[in-house]
């Protein structure tokens, strides 16, 4: 296994409010059939850090995110989330112990999807309390109180009894954020959370995410929103060809990229962004 060299994240540039490591991905490889999508990725995410993964589509950033909570089983490597360490099981022999460990990781890592994936047969409130009451053993009253707190936080408390079909895309994603928060995760992972939204609805979701970031929520975000990355990220990670090419504070990576591939990506990306 060859790890592609990458510039280390210099300790001096680490924002001072960061605590211990919450997510540690080590030597992650992922094959889809013969396709080598992740080629040895190491990523540490510190408590209260907001990490934005950028890169062109097919660079492996979404796959990396999905490997962290084992929605994709890594082919090789180790994932550790808040002290729960799981080795990749390349033959897919999902033993009971392996499954339980994965579930522990998922309880610690909330995930937001491009398509929101609210449960359409449940009201907003039910969406938020289903998992806490069923699998964390939280009492209904307590779960409702927590749900109302987070729904209020995303500005949708008055929609608590609506069904998802009656919400706009932006509202759905905000409910999904509240639903994830209700599980008390140690890290929130966002997979292109605004890509499926009409342009006028993107802002309301990014605003909520930015608030969370500033409050010290640990976040990993796959995004194409460069302005948002600049505003809310503690660290920007640029991926290409299944490896991390460059990472660092947003000002550095986005304004003075060191690697040619990063420069090229940003040049093209900003060109299409302003050209659109």
């Amino acid at each position, binding site marked *: 296994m060859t790890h592609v060299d990458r510039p280390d994240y210099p300790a001096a540039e680490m924002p001072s409010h960061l605590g211990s490591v919450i997510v540690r991905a080590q030597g992650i490889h992922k094959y889809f059939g013969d396709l080598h999508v992740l080629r040895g990725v190491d990523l540490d995410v510190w408590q209260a850090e907001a990490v934005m993964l950028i890169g062109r589509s097919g660079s492996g950033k979404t796959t990396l995110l999905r490997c962290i909570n084992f929605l994709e089983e890594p082919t090789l490597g180790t994932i550790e989330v808040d002290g729960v360490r799981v080795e990749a099981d390349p033959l897919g022999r999902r033993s009971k112990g392996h499954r339980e460990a994965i579930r522990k990781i998922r309880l610690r890592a*909330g995930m937001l999807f491009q398509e929101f994936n609210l449960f359409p047969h449940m009201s907003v409130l039910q969406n938020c309390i289903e998992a806490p009451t069923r699998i*964390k053993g939280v009492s209904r009253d307590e779960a409702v109180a927590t749900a109302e707190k987070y729904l209020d936080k995303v500005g949708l408390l008055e929609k608590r009894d609506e069904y998802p079909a009656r919400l706009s895309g932006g509202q759905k994603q905000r409910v999904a954020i509240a639903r994830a928060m209700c599980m008390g995760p140690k890290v929130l992972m966002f997979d292109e959370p605004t890509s499926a939204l009409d342009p006028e609805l993107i802002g309301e979701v990014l605003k909520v995410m930015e608030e969370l970031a500033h409050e010290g929520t640990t976040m990993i975000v796959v995004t194409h929103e460069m302005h948002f990355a600049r505003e809310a990220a503690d660290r920007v990670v640029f991926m290409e060809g299944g490896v991390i090419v460059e990472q660092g504070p947003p000002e550095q990576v986005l304004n003075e990229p060191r690697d040619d591939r990063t420069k090229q990506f940003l040049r093209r990306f900003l060109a299409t962004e302003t050209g659109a």
Partner: protein
Amino acid sequence: MTLDHHGQLLAPVDSQLVPPSAPIIEQIRRAKSKATLRFRIVFLATWLAIIGTLALALAGSFDGGFVSEWLGYILGGVGITVLVSVVSIAFAVVFAMLGALGRLSNHASIYAAASLYVSLVRGTPLLVQIFFVYYALPEVLPPVAKVPGIYLGILALSFNYGAYMTEIFRAGIQAVPRGQSEAAQALGMPERTVLRRIVLPQAIRIVIPAIGNEFIAMIKDSSLVSVVAVQELLWRARRAGAQDFNTFEALTIAALVYWALTIAFSLVQDRLEKRMARGDR
């Protein structure tokens, strides 16, 4: 080009900016509703003509006395027919659910068992299955002989329909978007909970219209259990008809009643579906 409301050509000046005049729109609307009305009238008239001709042609050989004497007795079977259909479809849903889960299982033996069930049951006639349960099973399992025909008939019907509906349920489960189970898994739900709380409730909504169709088919196929002495509609009609060789009257009544039942349930089904479409989804 624009026409004024007398149908005359207007000057082609700014033709795209001139809205069609209100009278034209009104005329179109009136013409359309007239056409709809005419279609309905012709439809109804055709039905009446065909049914009326048949009725007149056959009236001569139709024994009115038989009807007044036996109609009540034959209609007494409607309750059993509906009961058998409802109970059988309910059990069929259970068989279908188990079958579908089996057909989606990663365990080779479970998958194999479910596949065998579907293949065997769909590959043999329902009538043979009913006979088998009623006449053949007691030979190898003597206690079955004591079980009333209605239970065995329901068993055969639901087992048979369960196999057909297995494929419906499997398709319904697969029609639930993958993101739904991924979101549930990402929340930390174990597979069982994902299935029970997230996937199956949505799959059932998807298959409800299909279950309605199966139920209508079941009302008709329930007549087959008359061969194992269940005193439902057809059984009673045949018995009444056999008294004085009035098979024609008896079976006509039975056919009309089945027809009425299926029409009635189709209406109920339409309403249910409309209400579900209105509901939150």
